[in-house]
């Protein structure tokens, strides 16, 4: 039974490993895209423009309140159309076809971004206001304050929350197997179907995900320790 998992012509080991690599690639890209959406969302929520705050509020409420699968289906079935509609606004009339990878990254990134928005907003608000005032009093420009005071401390406060978002993102990528992208879940599904060993392959998938989540937990713990170096513990 276990030769099915081996590397070689009769084994699925190579494909499963490729699937794991694809899962990591999608997760990392989606998480980074989510950080971009999250930073934009957080700054919109913290800005004084009512319209911006409103848009960010709708974004986080809707994406967090609707099943992830629905967001993925929406972009998978309607994604190219939506991108073309945006393209037409900018004067591009051609046909744009998104591949499964881009759709997956876009969908999971959108979801991840909604959660990141809240994490980053909370972290920014946790930075003591007196420090910003002090920096301003020293004559720092807004950009310098952002780079030297706000971002390093926000990162420290946001890390635990971002760790959770990362775990969610990693697990959400399993859902884009419905778009036939060859990540862990898809490879396992195909393997289970063609070998009639569903239990074996789904267990393997579970083990692979456990490995990824465990490794990332350790990585985030390390990162937190690094970010908190020199900070006295309460």
């Amino acid at each position, binding site marked *: 039974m276990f030769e099915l998992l081996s590397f070689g012509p009769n084994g699925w080991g190579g494909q499963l490993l490729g699937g794991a690599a694809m899962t990591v690639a999608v997760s990392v890209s989606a998480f980074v895209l989510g950080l971009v959406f999250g930073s934009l969302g957080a700054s919109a929520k913290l800005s004084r423009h009512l319209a911006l705050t409103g848009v960010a509020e709708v974004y986080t*409420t*809707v994406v967090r*309140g*609707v*099943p*992830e*699968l*629905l967001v993925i*289906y*929406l972009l998978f*079935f*309607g994604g190219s*159309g939506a991108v073309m509609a945006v393209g037409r606004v900018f004067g591009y009339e051609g046909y744009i076809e998104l591949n499964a990878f881009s759709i997956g990254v876009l969908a999971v990134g959108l979801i991840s971004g909604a959660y990141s928005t809240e994490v980053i907003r909370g972290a920014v608000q946790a930075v003591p206001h007196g420090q910003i005032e002090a920096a301003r009093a020293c004559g720092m420009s807004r950009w310098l304050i952002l780079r030297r005071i706000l971002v390093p401390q926000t990162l420290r406060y946001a890390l635990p929350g971002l760790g959770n978002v990362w775990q969610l993102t990693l*697990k*959400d*990528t*399993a*859902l884009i*197997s*419905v778009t036939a992208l060859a990540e862990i*879940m898809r490879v*396992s*599904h195909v393997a*289970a179907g063609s070998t*009639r*060993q*569903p*239990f074996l392959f*789904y*267990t393997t*998938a*579970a083990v692979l*995900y*456990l490995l990824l*989540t*465990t490794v990332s937990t350790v990585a985030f713990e390390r990162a937190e320790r690094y970010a908190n170096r020199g900070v006295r513990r309460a």
Partner: protein
Amino acid sequence: MNWELMWDSVPTLLRGVPVTLQLVGLALLFGAGVAFAVALLRLYGNRVTERLMAAYVFVFRGTPLLVQIFLIYYGMGQFELVRSSFLWVYLREPFWCAILALTLNTGAYTSEILRGAILSVPQGQIEAARACGMSRTLLFRRIVMPVAIRQMLPAYGNEVILMVKASSLASTITLLEITGIARKIIAQSFAVFEVFIVAGSIYLLLNFLASRLIRYAEWRMTPYLRARG
């Protein structure tokens, strides 16, 4: 945007609401039982039960729900032992497979919430109850559980919303709940945006109601916070 089609899809999609509610309701009910047992075994059990329960929580929180659903729906039937047992009546039905997966999943997450809540009960209250001569079970029933449940409600609200959303995964094993029906309509009409917007709105509404319900429960259980005007 085809408004007419959107309007027409509303009653069809609403037909999926009872299935979604059944999935969520039953999973939350059974999941609460699992969570209660797991939390107790972790906190008051011996080393073996503690390790076992920790392993269960680790596995179910560390893997995607989709894997769990597929493992139960496709994986279990592979074994002759399962197919010949009385469980097969349930395990061959996608509905009960989805319930089982959702139950085990929410059970793992909820047990952590409950464990934290039980640990957060102030030690002074427990000492006071013991000083009054309460037995262990009475103390647990009258002091620990009420305080813990009140404490866990905000976090549990998140879990309820997660379950409403997670129930959409049941559509991947042929169940026709809201998402399943939405996919069916789209396969016939190709109106992707229209149908998914309506389906998404139904989920949003369900989640809004769920969060209000939890908020109300919280309000009911914290009268001492209301007195301060």
